């Protein structure tokens, strides 16, 4: 985070423009991602925060082109990875990029490893798919990667199967697969939710070190503002398929400008101080197939006014790179 000023000068590696991903369901069209735009620089960490159903995970699956189709489809928008539009690529071309230039670490370390292959096998597989290297050196590379993610006694553990490892170790193996081909962009989807706090701290530190070592651009998909505070340079807050506020991490924490961001931040208990009473956001997150016109947060918003239920607010710029979509800022 101290390298903030230098990161701002880094070249953009990933640019998402007006991304829309819709799902056709029995109840109608679900606009899971509805016009999302952001960019990501080399070495930068972006946090995408939202609750279940906010579209944060679907955004990332769209970027990876992993949307099951049908029922899902990217209906509009561009995803530019170093200028190349991923949306237009064939499945085969995308396969070559996925894992090697842009990689995904999925939520659950229990299900993202195959129980019948040794971990050496699985990390090796990821390497072999993307790199044309002789068999002998694969093992060497696997060991290198496992050491990079701080797996102790890598040369013996490489023969272990997932069930022989603890949750923290498995999470590291998943991380190892993610970085095995030195991607430019690494997406971590709730990477630590199932880990204990002390193990989570170890893992987050590791990710930070890996990022600094090779200037990876990192995206954290999370519902936890704590992860954002600890890890991210910039934040995008998503609600009902749209980014409602985006900015530098300090701008978001010091000057939350969308009522949803503000409410979320004040509804989380604090470790460092006594809070007499938490702010609680009433109501439930909306169901996406039946969105009201206007701002989807309006029914739960404490600042709601007439206009909110009529049309969706545009983005209002606050400071450099900090914007929010709320009529209150008009």
């Amino acid at each position, binding site marked *: *985070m101290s390298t903030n000023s230098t990161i701002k000068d880094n070249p953009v590696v990933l640019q998402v423009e007006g991304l829309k991903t819709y799902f056709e369901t029995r109840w109608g069209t679900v606009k899971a991602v509805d016009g999302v735009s952001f960019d990501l620089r080399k070495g930068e960490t972006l946090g995408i925060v939202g*609750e*279940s159903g906010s579209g944060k995970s679907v955004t990332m699956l769209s970027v990876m082109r992993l949307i099951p189709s049908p029922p899902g489809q990217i209906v509009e928008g561009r995803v530019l990875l170093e200028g190349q539009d991923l949306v237009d690529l064939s499945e085969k071309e995308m396969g070559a990029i996925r894992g090697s230039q842009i990689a995904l670490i999925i939520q659950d370390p229990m299900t993202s490893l195959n129980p019948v292959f040794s971990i050496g096998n699985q990390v090796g597989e990821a390497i072999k798919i993307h790199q044309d290297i002789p068999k002998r050196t694969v093992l060497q590379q696997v060991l290198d990667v496992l050491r990079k993610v701080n797996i102790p006694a890598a040369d013996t553990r490489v023969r272990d199967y997932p069930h022989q490892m*603890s949750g*923290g*170790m498995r999470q590291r193996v998943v991380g190892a697969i993610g970085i095995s081909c030195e991607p430019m962009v690494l997406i971590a989807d709730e990477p630590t939710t199932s880990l*204990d*706090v*002390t*193990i*989570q*701290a*170890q893992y987050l*530190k590791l990710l930070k070190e890996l990022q600094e070592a090779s200037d990876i651009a990192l995206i954290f998909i999370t*519902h*936890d*503002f*704590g*992860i*954002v*505070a*600890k890890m*991210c340079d910039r934040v995008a807050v998503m609600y009902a398929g749209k980014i409602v506020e985006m900015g530098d*991490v*300090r701008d978001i*924490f010091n000057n939350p400008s969308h009522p949803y961001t503000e*409410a*979320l931040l004040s*509804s*989380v*208990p*604090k*470790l*460092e101080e*006594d*809070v007499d*009473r*938490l*702010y*609680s*956001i*009433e109501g*439930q*997150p909306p169901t996406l197939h039946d969105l009201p016109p206007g701002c989807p947060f309006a029914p739960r918003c404490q600042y709601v006014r007439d206009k909110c239920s009529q049309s969706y607010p545009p983005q209002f710029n606050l400071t450099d790179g900090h914007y929010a979509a709320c009529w209150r800022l008009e």
Partner: protein
Amino acid sequence: MTTTTMDARPTADTTNEVLLEAEGLKKYFPVTKGLLISKITGHIKAVDGVSFQIRAGETLGIVGESGCGKSTTAKMLLQLEEPTEGTIRYQGKTIHNATSEERRAYRSSVQAVFQDPWSSLNPRMRVRDLIAEPMVINLDLSRREMQDRVAKLLEDVGLSSYHANLYPHEFSGGQRQRLAIARALSVEPRVIVLDEPVSALDVSIRAQIMNLLKDLQEEYNVSYLLIAHHLATVRYMCDWVAVMYLGQIVEFGPTRELFENASHPYTKALMNAALPSHPDIEQEEMILTGEVPSPLNPPEGCRFHPRCPFVIDQCPTAIPQVTELAPGHMVSCHLY
């Protein structure tokens, strides 16, 4: 005051009546080996000598990582597990040798709310029957009285009486947790064990449920035992906090005192590992190495010593004494 097992029983500034008391609770699970003739080869010491008190109208929090024994402790209080050793006293009476009448009274005085709102409500029962079940079993009420109480409970937890006719799948996670709370309250218990009551919920819903629990505590004058891994939640909800590691309480104290003067190295490590609430909060770099050892063969001496950054000579051999640092603030560590 120096003893060898942590006695997490407040001595300071509280006059509330002691409702529930655990003394020297132990739970060992046998580990067996062999296919035909199975032999016990060891014991998993899930809980190994835990004492605490729950006072009327207060909340005691137990924090710790997975495998520290906090859930097993809760299960023993709920009589879902039989303690290997130790006693549980309710209003001064030992539960172990209680008459069936007293056991019955205990059952309706100690209720529970669990983590997963999808698994804790029987999907085939209507809300009405779900909430009324503890009353049907324990109280002698007419149909009419039962209905009225269900309606009142639903309103008390922020739902409406018409919800009584629905099935659980028609509710969201947060609403289901409200139903679970209404059910627990139906027999007007004195203590409710809350096992990670908000961790399965969406962030914007968690505050709703935490506030609801606080309001209901006031209204029903009920005590809580909160089992949680999220420290900030514990700080918000609890009057007293016990920190558990490998089946034992390592530090105990009034919430504020404990959070501001965390003394046991494990408590400190937990606090440093917890995620900050603001990017400007600088955290001490105190990341523990390794993982929690197996409770099958817990380390000799202080159980935390293999991972402790401040380890000193006597740690691997001697069991640490318990020291009272401030009124009610107890720590079990050689450094003090």
